Protein backbone atom coordinates (compact mmCIF):
# COMPACT_ATOMS: atom_id res chain seq x y z
CA UNK A 1 0.00 0.00 0.00
CA UNK A 2 2.90 2.28 0.84
CA UNK A 3 4.75 2.42 -2.43
CA UNK A 4 1.78 3.38 -4.58
CA UNK A 5 2.32 6.55 -6.63
CA UNK A 6 0.30 9.37 -5.06
CA UNK A 7 -2.18 9.94 -7.91
CA UNK A 8 -2.85 6.21 -8.19
CA UNK A 9 -3.63 6.12 -4.47
CA UNK A 10 -6.01 9.09 -4.77
CA UNK A 11 -7.68 7.49 -7.79
CA UNK A 12 -8.28 4.35 -5.78
CA UNK A 13 -9.80 6.49 -3.02
CA UNK A 14 -12.09 8.14 -5.56
CA UNK A 15 -13.23 4.82 -6.96
CA UNK A 16 -13.96 3.47 -3.50
CA UNK A 17 -15.92 6.61 -2.58
CA UNK A 18 -17.94 6.33 -5.76
CA UNK A 19 -18.70 2.74 -4.93
CA UNK A 20 -19.62 3.69 -1.38
CA UNK A 21 -22.00 6.27 -2.84
CA UNK A 22 -23.54 3.62 -5.08
CA UNK A 23 -24.07 1.37 -2.04
CA UNK A 24 -25.73 4.17 -0.09
CA UNK A 25 -27.97 5.05 -3.03
CA UNK A 26 -29.05 1.43 -3.42
CA UNK A 27 -29.99 1.24 0.27
CA UNK A 28 -31.85 4.54 0.09
CA UNK A 29 -33.75 3.33 -2.98
CA UNK A 30 -34.79 0.20 -1.14
CA UNK A 31 -35.79 2.30 1.88
CA UNK A 32 -37.87 4.69 -0.23
CA UNK A 33 -39.48 1.91 -2.26
CA UNK A 34 -39.77 -1.09 0.03
CA UNK A 35 -42.24 -2.68 -2.40
CA UNK A 36 -39.71 -2.84 -5.24
CA UNK A 37 -37.07 -5.49 -5.59
CA UNK A 38 -33.52 -4.15 -5.70
CA UNK A 39 -31.81 -7.49 -5.07
CA UNK A 40 -30.23 -7.52 -8.53
CA UNK A 41 -28.81 -4.00 -8.10
CA UNK A 42 -27.47 -4.84 -4.64
CA UNK A 43 -25.88 -8.03 -5.91
CA UNK A 44 -24.26 -6.05 -8.71
CA UNK A 45 -22.82 -3.49 -6.32
CA UNK A 46 -21.64 -6.05 -3.82
CA UNK A 47 -19.86 -7.87 -6.67
CA UNK A 48 -18.22 -4.58 -7.60
CA UNK A 49 -16.88 -4.31 -4.05
CA UNK A 50 -15.35 -7.76 -4.36
CA UNK A 51 -13.85 -7.18 -7.82
CA UNK A 52 -12.44 -3.77 -6.99
CA UNK A 53 -11.26 -4.93 -3.58
CA UNK A 54 -9.30 -7.85 -5.02
CA UNK A 55 -7.90 -5.69 -7.84
CA UNK A 56 -6.74 -2.88 -5.54
CA UNK A 57 -5.16 -5.25 -3.04
CA UNK A 58 -3.23 -7.04 -5.81
CA UNK A 59 -2.17 -3.72 -7.40
CA UNK A 60 -1.07 -2.35 -4.04
CA UNK A 61 1.01 -5.36 -3.00
CA UNK A 62 3.31 -5.59 -6.01
CA UNK A 63 3.52 -5.74 -9.78
CA UNK A 64 3.96 -9.50 -9.55
CA UNK A 65 0.73 -10.08 -7.63
CA UNK A 66 -1.07 -7.86 -10.12
CA UNK A 67 0.34 -9.90 -13.02
CA UNK A 68 -0.78 -13.12 -11.33
CA UNK A 69 -4.25 -11.66 -10.89
CA UNK A 70 -4.48 -10.68 -14.57
CA UNK A 71 -3.20 -14.11 -15.62
CA UNK A 72 -5.85 -15.72 -13.44
CA UNK A 73 -8.54 -13.46 -14.94
CA UNK A 74 -7.38 -14.50 -18.42
CA UNK A 75 -7.64 -18.14 -17.35
CA UNK A 76 -11.19 -17.70 -16.02
CA UNK A 77 -12.24 -15.86 -19.18
CA UNK A 78 -10.64 -18.37 -21.54
CA UNK A 79 -12.19 -21.25 -19.62
CA UNK A 80 -15.58 -19.60 -19.75
CA UNK A 81 -15.23 -19.08 -23.49
CA UNK A 82 -14.26 -22.71 -24.11
CA UNK A 83 -17.18 -23.83 -21.95
CA UNK A 84 -19.93 -22.10 -23.91
CA UNK A 85 -18.74 -22.68 -27.48
CA UNK A 86 -19.18 -26.00 -29.27
CA UNK A 87 -15.87 -27.87 -29.29
CA UNK A 88 -15.06 -31.43 -30.30
CA UNK A 89 -13.87 -33.98 -27.80
CA UNK A 90 -10.71 -34.19 -29.91
CA UNK A 91 -9.93 -30.58 -29.09
CA UNK A 92 -9.23 -31.25 -25.41
CA UNK A 93 -5.47 -31.46 -25.83
CA UNK A 94 -5.40 -28.35 -28.00
CA UNK A 95 -7.44 -26.48 -25.40
CA UNK A 96 -4.94 -27.63 -22.79
CA UNK A 97 -2.10 -26.09 -24.83
CA UNK A 98 -4.07 -22.88 -25.16
CA UNK A 99 -4.25 -22.72 -21.36
CA UNK A 100 -0.48 -23.19 -21.18
CA UNK A 101 -0.07 -20.04 -23.28
CA UNK A 102 -1.41 -17.98 -20.34
CA UNK A 103 1.54 -18.34 -17.90
CA UNK A 104 3.98 -17.87 -20.79
CA UNK A 105 2.29 -14.74 -22.10
CA UNK A 106 2.29 -13.19 -18.61
CA UNK A 107 5.88 -14.29 -18.11
CA UNK A 108 6.89 -12.26 -21.19
CA UNK A 109 4.99 -9.34 -19.65
CA UNK A 110 6.75 -9.85 -16.32
CA UNK A 111 10.24 -9.78 -17.80
CA UNK A 112 9.28 -6.85 -20.02
CA UNK A 113 10.12 -8.64 -23.28
CA UNK A 114 7.94 -6.45 -25.49
CA UNK A 115 8.83 -8.15 -28.78
CA UNK A 116 7.78 -11.56 -27.52
CA UNK A 117 4.73 -10.27 -25.69
CA UNK A 118 3.42 -8.68 -28.86
CA UNK A 119 3.87 -11.66 -31.21
CA UNK A 120 3.65 -14.74 -28.98
CA UNK A 121 -0.08 -15.39 -29.39
CA UNK A 122 -0.66 -13.84 -32.84
CA UNK A 123 2.30 -15.72 -34.33
CA UNK A 124 3.61 -18.67 -32.33
CA UNK A 125 0.41 -19.84 -30.68
CA UNK A 126 -1.46 -19.16 -33.90
CA UNK A 127 0.86 -21.43 -35.84
CA UNK A 128 1.33 -24.06 -33.16
CA UNK A 129 -2.28 -24.88 -32.22
CA UNK A 130 -3.33 -26.12 -35.69
CA UNK A 131 -0.12 -28.18 -35.78
CA UNK A 132 -1.17 -29.92 -32.57
CA UNK A 133 -4.60 -30.46 -34.12
CA UNK A 134 -3.05 -32.06 -37.17
CA UNK A 135 -1.16 -34.49 -34.95
CA UNK A 136 -4.46 -35.52 -33.33
CA UNK A 137 -5.67 -36.13 -36.86
CA UNK A 138 -9.40 -35.43 -36.77
CA UNK A 139 -10.25 -33.28 -39.78
CA UNK A 140 -14.03 -33.10 -39.40
CA UNK A 141 -14.73 -29.66 -37.93
CA UNK A 142 -11.04 -28.68 -38.12
CA UNK A 143 -11.53 -25.14 -39.41
CA UNK A 144 -14.18 -24.26 -36.86
CA UNK A 145 -12.17 -25.56 -33.90
CA UNK A 146 -8.93 -23.91 -35.03
CA UNK A 147 -10.78 -20.62 -35.44
CA UNK A 148 -12.58 -20.78 -32.10
CA UNK A 149 -9.54 -21.75 -30.07
CA UNK A 150 -7.30 -19.07 -31.46
CA UNK A 151 -9.93 -16.36 -31.41
CA UNK A 152 -10.66 -17.15 -27.75
CA UNK A 153 -6.94 -16.98 -26.89
CA UNK A 154 -6.58 -13.64 -28.65
CA UNK A 155 -9.54 -12.05 -26.87
CA UNK A 156 -9.04 -13.40 -23.37
CA UNK A 157 -5.28 -13.78 -23.10
CA UNK A 158 -3.64 -11.51 -25.66
CA UNK A 159 -6.01 -8.55 -25.31
CA UNK A 160 -6.29 -8.72 -21.51
CA UNK A 161 -2.52 -9.03 -21.11
CA UNK A 162 -2.20 -5.51 -22.54
CA UNK A 163 -3.66 -4.19 -19.29
CA UNK A 164 -0.88 -6.00 -17.44
CA UNK A 165 1.80 -4.61 -19.75
CA UNK A 166 0.79 -1.07 -18.77
CA UNK A 167 2.38 -1.87 -15.40
CA UNK A 168 5.69 -2.71 -17.07
CA UNK A 169 6.02 0.31 -19.36
CA UNK A 170 8.73 2.78 -18.32
CA UNK A 171 7.26 5.39 -15.99
CA UNK A 172 6.60 8.68 -17.77
CA UNK A 173 4.25 10.17 -15.22
CA UNK A 174 5.95 9.42 -11.90
CA UNK A 175 2.99 10.62 -9.83
CA UNK A 176 0.70 8.06 -11.45
CA UNK A 177 3.03 5.26 -12.51
CA UNK A 178 1.89 2.04 -14.18
CA UNK A 179 -0.86 1.57 -11.62
CA UNK A 180 -2.33 4.92 -12.69
CA UNK A 181 -2.56 3.74 -16.31
CA UNK A 182 -4.20 0.48 -15.28
CA UNK A 183 -6.78 2.24 -13.11
CA UNK A 184 -7.40 4.72 -15.93
CA UNK A 185 -8.15 2.12 -18.62
CA UNK A 186 -10.16 -0.15 -16.32
CA UNK A 187 -12.37 2.61 -14.94
CA UNK A 188 -12.83 4.54 -18.15
CA UNK A 189 -13.95 1.29 -19.75
CA UNK A 190 -16.34 0.36 -16.96
CA UNK A 191 -17.67 3.92 -16.55
CA UNK A 192 -18.27 3.96 -20.29
CA UNK A 193 -20.42 0.82 -19.97
CA UNK A 194 -22.31 2.33 -17.07
CA UNK A 195 -22.82 5.76 -18.62
CA UNK A 196 -23.93 4.26 -21.94
CA UNK A 197 -26.40 2.16 -19.98
CA UNK A 198 -27.73 5.09 -17.96
CA UNK A 199 -27.93 7.46 -20.95
CA UNK A 200 -29.69 4.71 -22.87
CA UNK A 201 -32.22 4.23 -20.06
CA UNK A 202 -32.87 7.97 -19.83
CA UNK A 203 -32.90 9.07 -23.46
CA UNK A 204 -32.73 5.87 -25.51
CA UNK A 205 -34.93 5.88 -28.61
CA UNK A 206 -33.11 5.00 -31.82
CA UNK A 207 -31.67 1.52 -31.89
CA UNK A 208 -28.15 1.11 -33.29
CA UNK A 209 -28.02 -2.62 -34.00
CA UNK A 210 -31.40 -4.13 -33.12
CA UNK A 211 -30.42 -7.54 -34.45
CA UNK A 212 -27.51 -7.96 -32.04
CA UNK A 213 -28.44 -5.98 -28.99
CA UNK A 214 -31.94 -4.47 -28.89
CA UNK A 215 -31.13 -2.35 -25.82
CA UNK A 216 -28.33 -0.38 -27.46
CA UNK A 217 -29.37 3.04 -28.70
CA UNK A 218 -27.68 5.97 -30.38
CA UNK A 219 -28.64 8.16 -27.43
CA UNK A 220 -26.95 5.75 -25.00
CA UNK A 221 -23.84 5.50 -27.16
CA UNK A 222 -23.51 9.27 -27.56
CA UNK A 223 -24.23 9.86 -23.87
CA UNK A 224 -21.38 7.50 -22.98
CA UNK A 225 -19.11 9.04 -25.60
CA UNK A 226 -19.62 12.58 -24.27
CA UNK A 227 -19.25 11.56 -20.62
CA UNK A 228 -16.09 9.55 -21.15
CA UNK A 229 -14.49 12.10 -23.51
CA UNK A 230 -14.99 14.83 -20.95
CA UNK A 231 -13.86 12.67 -18.03
CA UNK A 232 -10.84 11.39 -19.92
CA UNK A 233 -9.79 14.91 -20.92
CA UNK A 234 -9.80 15.90 -17.26
CA UNK A 235 -8.31 12.74 -15.75
CA UNK A 236 -5.74 11.64 -18.38
CA UNK A 237 -3.10 14.31 -17.60
CA UNK A 238 -3.36 13.34 -13.95
CA UNK A 239 -3.28 9.51 -14.27
CA UNK A 240 -1.41 8.92 -17.54
CA UNK A 241 1.50 10.39 -19.54
CA UNK A 242 -1.05 11.92 -21.97
CA UNK A 243 -1.92 15.62 -22.09
CA UNK A 244 -5.50 16.91 -22.07
CA UNK A 245 -5.94 16.84 -25.89
CA UNK A 246 -4.50 13.39 -26.10
CA UNK A 247 -6.78 12.44 -23.21
CA UNK A 248 -9.78 13.59 -25.24
CA UNK A 249 -8.65 11.27 -28.06
CA UNK A 250 -8.24 8.44 -25.59
CA UNK A 251 -11.78 9.02 -24.31
CA UNK A 252 -13.26 8.83 -27.81
CA UNK A 253 -11.22 5.73 -28.54
CA UNK A 254 -12.20 3.98 -25.29
CA UNK A 255 -15.86 4.82 -25.65
CA UNK A 256 -16.11 3.55 -29.24
CA UNK A 257 -13.94 0.49 -28.64
CA UNK A 258 -15.81 -0.37 -25.46
CA UNK A 259 -19.08 -0.29 -27.33
CA UNK A 260 -17.72 -2.59 -30.03
CA UNK A 261 -16.31 -5.07 -27.50
CA UNK A 262 -19.66 -5.17 -25.77
CA UNK A 263 -21.62 -5.95 -28.93
CA UNK A 264 -19.05 -8.46 -30.18
CA UNK A 265 -19.53 -10.57 -27.06
CA UNK A 266 -23.29 -9.96 -27.31
CA UNK A 267 -23.16 -11.45 -30.80
CA UNK A 268 -21.28 -14.48 -29.49
CA UNK A 269 -23.94 -15.03 -26.83
CA UNK A 270 -26.76 -14.46 -29.31
CA UNK A 271 -25.21 -17.02 -31.65
CA UNK A 272 -25.15 -19.54 -28.81
CA UNK A 273 -28.64 -18.50 -27.63
CA UNK A 274 -27.53 -17.76 -24.06
CA UNK A 275 -28.11 -14.62 -22.03
CA UNK A 276 -25.04 -14.63 -19.78
CA UNK A 277 -21.71 -16.29 -20.46
CA UNK A 278 -21.54 -17.75 -16.96
CA UNK A 279 -22.61 -17.36 -13.35
CA UNK A 280 -19.26 -16.48 -11.80
CA UNK A 281 -20.07 -12.89 -10.77
CA UNK A 282 -23.44 -12.50 -9.01
CA UNK A 283 -25.52 -9.77 -10.64
CA UNK A 284 -23.16 -9.47 -13.63
CA UNK A 285 -23.25 -12.93 -15.20
CA UNK A 286 -20.00 -14.47 -16.32
CA UNK A 287 -16.53 -12.99 -16.44
CA UNK A 288 -16.79 -12.45 -20.22
CA UNK A 289 -19.85 -10.30 -19.60
CA UNK A 290 -17.64 -8.04 -17.49
CA UNK A 291 -14.52 -8.12 -19.68
CA UNK A 292 -16.25 -7.73 -23.04
CA UNK A 293 -15.50 -4.01 -23.48
CA UNK A 294 -12.04 -4.26 -21.95
CA UNK A 295 -10.95 -6.83 -24.54
CA UNK A 296 -11.29 -4.08 -27.15
CA UNK A 297 -10.28 -1.02 -25.16
CA UNK A 298 -7.12 -2.46 -23.55
CA UNK A 299 -4.99 -3.15 -26.67
CA UNK A 300 -6.24 -0.03 -28.48
CA UNK A 301 -5.55 2.26 -25.54
CA UNK A 302 -2.20 0.56 -24.98
CA UNK A 303 -1.01 1.24 -28.54
CA UNK A 304 -2.45 4.76 -28.51
CA UNK A 305 -0.35 5.56 -25.44
CA UNK A 306 2.62 3.61 -26.72
CA UNK A 307 2.63 5.61 -29.94
CA UNK A 308 2.12 9.01 -28.34
CA UNK A 309 4.17 8.80 -25.15
CA UNK A 310 6.79 6.06 -25.42
Amino acid at each position, binding site marked *: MLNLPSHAGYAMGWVLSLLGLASIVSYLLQYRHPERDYTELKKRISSWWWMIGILFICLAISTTTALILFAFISF*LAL*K*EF*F*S*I*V*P*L*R*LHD*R*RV*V*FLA*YLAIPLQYYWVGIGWYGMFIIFIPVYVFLLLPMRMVLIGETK*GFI*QSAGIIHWASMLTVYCISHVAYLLILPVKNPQAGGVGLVIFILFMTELNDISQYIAGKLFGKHKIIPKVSPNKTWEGFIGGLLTISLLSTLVAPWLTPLNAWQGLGAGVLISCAGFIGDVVISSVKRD*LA*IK*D*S*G*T*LIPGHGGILDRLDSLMYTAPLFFHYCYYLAY
Partner: protein
Amino acid sequence: MIKILFFALLIKPIVFIVLGLNLQGYKQLPLKGPAVVAANHNSHLDVLVLMSLYPLRRLKYVRPVAAADYFFQNKLWAWIATQCIDIIPIQRSGQSVDTVLAACHQVLESGQILILFPEGSRGQPEQLGQIKKGLFYLMQRHPHVPITPVFMRGLGKALPRGEALFVPFNCDVIIGEPLALSSDANAFITLIRHTFQTLSQRCLGQGVA
Protein backbone atom coordinates in the same frame (compact mmCIF):
# COMPACT_ATOMS: atom_id res chain seq x y z
CA MET B 1 -11.36 -36.92 8.90
CA ILE B 2 -9.32 -37.92 5.85
CA LYS B 3 -12.47 -37.43 3.82
CA ILE B 4 -12.96 -33.88 5.09
CA LEU B 5 -9.32 -32.91 4.51
CA PHE B 6 -9.37 -34.52 1.06
CA PHE B 7 -12.35 -32.38 0.07
CA ALA B 8 -11.34 -29.18 1.88
CA LEU B 9 -7.76 -29.03 0.61
CA LEU B 10 -7.85 -30.82 -2.73
CA ILE B 11 -11.25 -31.48 -4.25
CA LYS B 12 -13.19 -28.32 -3.41
CA PRO B 13 -10.44 -25.99 -4.72
CA ILE B 14 -10.23 -28.04 -7.91
CA VAL B 15 -13.98 -28.12 -8.39
CA PHE B 16 -14.70 -24.47 -7.61
CA ILE B 17 -11.56 -22.71 -8.84
CA VAL B 18 -9.86 -24.77 -11.53
CA LEU B 19 -13.06 -26.24 -12.91
CA GLY B 20 -15.81 -23.76 -12.00
CA LEU B 21 -19.49 -24.60 -11.78
CA ASN B 22 -22.61 -23.08 -13.20
CA LEU B 23 -24.85 -24.23 -10.40
CA GLN B 24 -28.63 -23.92 -10.62
CA GLY B 25 -31.28 -25.04 -8.13
CA TYR B 26 -28.93 -25.39 -5.18
CA LYS B 27 -31.86 -25.04 -2.77
CA GLN B 28 -33.25 -28.32 -4.04
CA LEU B 29 -30.18 -30.27 -2.95
CA PRO B 30 -31.17 -32.45 0.01
CA LEU B 31 -28.84 -31.56 2.87
CA LYS B 32 -30.41 -34.02 5.30
CA GLY B 33 -30.98 -37.71 4.79
CA PRO B 34 -32.45 -40.07 4.10
CA ALA B 35 -32.34 -38.88 0.52
CA VAL B 36 -31.21 -40.05 -2.90
CA VAL B 37 -29.33 -37.87 -5.39
CA ALA B 38 -29.66 -39.34 -8.88
CA ALA B 39 -27.35 -37.83 -11.50
CA ASN B 40 -26.27 -38.52 -15.05
CA HIS B 41 -22.80 -40.00 -15.35
CA ASN B 42 -19.98 -38.94 -17.68
CA SER B 43 -16.79 -38.78 -15.69
CA HIS B 44 -15.01 -39.74 -12.50
CA LEU B 45 -15.38 -36.08 -11.59
CA ASP B 46 -19.17 -36.46 -11.27
CA VAL B 47 -19.02 -37.93 -7.78
CA LEU B 48 -16.42 -35.40 -6.62
CA VAL B 49 -18.44 -32.46 -7.93
CA LEU B 50 -21.68 -33.67 -6.34
CA MET B 51 -19.97 -34.25 -3.00
CA SER B 52 -18.28 -30.83 -3.17
CA LEU B 53 -21.70 -29.20 -3.20
CA TYR B 54 -22.12 -30.30 0.41
CA PRO B 55 -20.76 -28.31 3.34
CA LEU B 56 -17.79 -30.07 4.94
CA ARG B 57 -19.66 -30.93 8.11
CA ARG B 58 -22.37 -32.77 6.14
CA LEU B 59 -19.90 -34.76 4.02
CA LYS B 60 -19.79 -37.61 6.50
CA TYR B 61 -23.40 -38.47 5.66
CA VAL B 62 -22.97 -38.34 1.89
CA ARG B 63 -22.25 -41.74 0.35
CA PRO B 64 -21.80 -42.41 -3.36
CA VAL B 65 -22.46 -45.79 -4.92
CA ALA B 66 -19.56 -47.07 -7.02
CA ALA B 67 -18.59 -50.23 -8.81
CA ALA B 68 -16.41 -52.45 -6.62
CA ASP B 69 -14.97 -54.36 -9.58
CA TYR B 70 -13.61 -51.07 -10.98
CA PHE B 71 -12.37 -49.23 -7.92
CA PHE B 72 -10.79 -52.18 -6.16
CA GLN B 73 -8.54 -52.98 -9.12
CA ASN B 74 -5.49 -51.45 -7.51
CA LYS B 75 -4.46 -50.39 -4.04
CA LEU B 76 -4.26 -46.64 -4.58
CA TRP B 77 -7.72 -46.44 -6.13
CA ALA B 78 -9.11 -48.67 -3.39
CA TRP B 79 -7.59 -46.45 -0.70
CA ILE B 80 -8.98 -43.26 -2.24
CA ALA B 81 -12.37 -44.88 -2.78
CA THR B 82 -12.75 -46.17 0.76
CA GLN B 83 -10.84 -43.59 2.84
CA CYS B 84 -11.25 -40.31 0.97
CA ILE B 85 -14.59 -40.73 -0.74
CA ASP B 86 -16.13 -43.44 1.39
CA ILE B 87 -18.00 -45.20 -1.42
CA ILE B 88 -20.60 -47.90 -1.11
CA PRO B 89 -19.05 -50.64 -3.23
CA ILE B 90 -21.45 -52.50 -5.50
CA GLN B 91 -20.64 -55.72 -7.35
CA ARG B 92 -21.96 -55.20 -10.83
CA SER B 93 -22.20 -58.87 -11.81
CA GLY B 94 -22.94 -62.31 -10.47
CA GLN B 95 -25.17 -61.44 -7.56
CA SER B 96 -28.88 -61.22 -6.90
CA VAL B 97 -30.53 -57.81 -6.91
CA ASP B 98 -31.12 -57.91 -3.17
CA THR B 99 -27.50 -58.60 -2.24
CA VAL B 100 -26.32 -55.84 -4.56
CA LEU B 101 -28.66 -53.30 -3.01
CA ALA B 102 -28.25 -54.40 0.62
CA ALA B 103 -25.63 -51.76 1.41
CA CYS B 104 -27.77 -49.03 -0.16
CA HIS B 105 -30.75 -50.03 1.96
CA GLN B 106 -28.59 -49.81 5.02
CA VAL B 107 -27.36 -46.33 4.11
CA LEU B 108 -30.88 -45.02 3.59
CA GLU B 109 -32.16 -46.67 6.74
CA SER B 110 -29.45 -44.96 8.76
CA GLY B 111 -30.60 -41.60 7.42
CA GLN B 112 -27.67 -40.85 5.10
CA ILE B 113 -27.64 -39.35 1.62
CA LEU B 114 -27.07 -41.73 -1.25
CA ILE B 115 -25.51 -40.51 -4.50
CA LEU B 116 -26.04 -42.79 -7.45
CA PHE B 117 -26.01 -42.81 -11.22
CA PRO B 118 -29.05 -44.50 -12.78
CA GLU B 119 -27.09 -45.06 -16.01
CA GLY B 120 -24.74 -47.34 -14.11
CA SER B 121 -21.58 -46.52 -16.06
CA ARG B 122 -20.02 -43.40 -17.55
CA GLY B 123 -20.67 -44.47 -21.13
CA GLN B 124 -19.93 -42.24 -24.11
CA PRO B 125 -18.64 -38.77 -23.19
CA GLU B 126 -21.43 -36.23 -22.72
CA GLN B 127 -24.19 -38.57 -23.86
CA LEU B 128 -27.03 -39.93 -21.82
CA GLY B 129 -26.76 -43.70 -21.68
CA GLN B 130 -29.35 -46.41 -21.05
CA ILE B 131 -30.99 -45.88 -17.65
CA LYS B 132 -31.02 -49.02 -15.51
CA LYS B 133 -33.75 -50.32 -13.25
CA GLY B 134 -31.60 -50.50 -10.10
CA LEU B 135 -32.86 -47.21 -8.64
CA PHE B 136 -36.47 -48.32 -9.11
CA TYR B 137 -35.91 -51.61 -7.26
CA LEU B 138 -34.00 -49.82 -4.51
CA MET B 139 -36.77 -47.31 -3.91
CA GLN B 140 -39.47 -49.96 -3.58
CA ARG B 141 -38.43 -50.34 0.02
CA HIS B 142 -38.14 -46.58 0.64
CA PRO B 143 -41.21 -45.06 -1.03
CA HIS B 144 -41.04 -41.86 1.04
CA VAL B 145 -37.37 -41.06 0.53
CA PRO B 146 -37.03 -38.10 -1.88
CA ILE B 147 -35.12 -38.68 -5.13
CA THR B 148 -33.43 -35.49 -6.33
CA PRO B 149 -32.38 -35.47 -9.99
CA VAL B 150 -29.17 -33.68 -10.98
CA PHE B 151 -28.04 -33.10 -14.54
CA MET B 152 -24.39 -32.28 -15.20
CA ARG B 153 -22.73 -31.21 -18.43
CA GLY B 154 -19.10 -30.50 -19.24
CA LEU B 155 -17.39 -32.96 -16.91
CA GLY B 156 -17.22 -35.47 -19.74
CA LYS B 157 -15.14 -32.88 -21.59
CA ALA B 158 -12.95 -32.11 -18.58
CA LEU B 159 -12.12 -35.74 -17.87
CA PRO B 160 -13.83 -38.26 -20.14
CA ARG B 161 -13.68 -41.99 -19.78
CA GLY B 162 -10.30 -43.45 -20.65
CA GLU B 163 -8.42 -40.14 -20.52
CA ALA B 164 -5.86 -39.16 -17.91
CA LEU B 165 -5.37 -35.51 -18.94
CA PHE B 166 -7.61 -33.16 -16.97
CA VAL B 167 -8.65 -30.09 -18.98
CA PRO B 168 -10.59 -27.38 -17.11
CA PHE B 169 -14.04 -26.38 -18.39
CA ASN B 170 -16.88 -24.67 -16.54
CA CYS B 171 -19.47 -27.31 -15.84
CA ASP B 172 -23.22 -27.08 -15.55
CA VAL B 173 -24.82 -28.63 -12.48
CA ILE B 174 -28.60 -28.35 -12.62
CA ILE B 175 -30.52 -29.65 -9.62
CA GLY B 176 -34.21 -30.43 -10.16
CA GLU B 177 -37.21 -30.95 -7.93
CA PRO B 178 -37.63 -34.34 -6.20
CA LEU B 179 -39.16 -37.05 -8.37
CA ALA B 180 -42.25 -39.05 -7.55
CA LEU B 181 -41.73 -42.80 -7.64
CA SER B 182 -43.76 -44.47 -10.41
CA SER B 183 -45.48 -47.79 -9.89
CA ASP B 184 -43.80 -49.34 -12.88
CA ALA B 185 -40.08 -49.65 -13.62
CA ASN B 186 -40.31 -48.57 -17.26
CA ALA B 187 -42.45 -45.57 -16.46
CA PHE B 188 -39.89 -44.56 -13.83
CA ILE B 189 -37.03 -44.87 -16.31
CA THR B 190 -38.94 -42.73 -18.79
CA LEU B 191 -39.54 -40.16 -16.06
CA ILE B 192 -35.83 -39.98 -15.19
CA ARG B 193 -34.80 -39.70 -18.82
CA HIS B 194 -37.38 -37.00 -19.42
CA THR B 195 -36.28 -35.10 -16.29
CA PHE B 196 -32.63 -35.17 -17.35
CA GLN B 197 -33.59 -33.85 -20.77
CA THR B 198 -35.64 -31.03 -19.26
CA LEU B 199 -32.85 -30.05 -16.87
CA SER B 200 -30.29 -30.17 -19.69
CA GLN B 201 -32.07 -27.31 -21.45
CA ARG B 202 -30.98 -24.98 -18.64
CA CYS B 203 -27.28 -25.69 -19.26
CA LEU B 204 -25.05 -22.84 -20.46
CA GLY B 205 -22.39 -25.11 -21.83
CA GLN B 206 -22.48 -27.07 -25.04
CA GLY B 207 -22.28 -30.80 -25.42
CA VAL B 208 -19.49 -32.13 -27.58
CA ALA B 209 -19.84 -31.32 -31.25
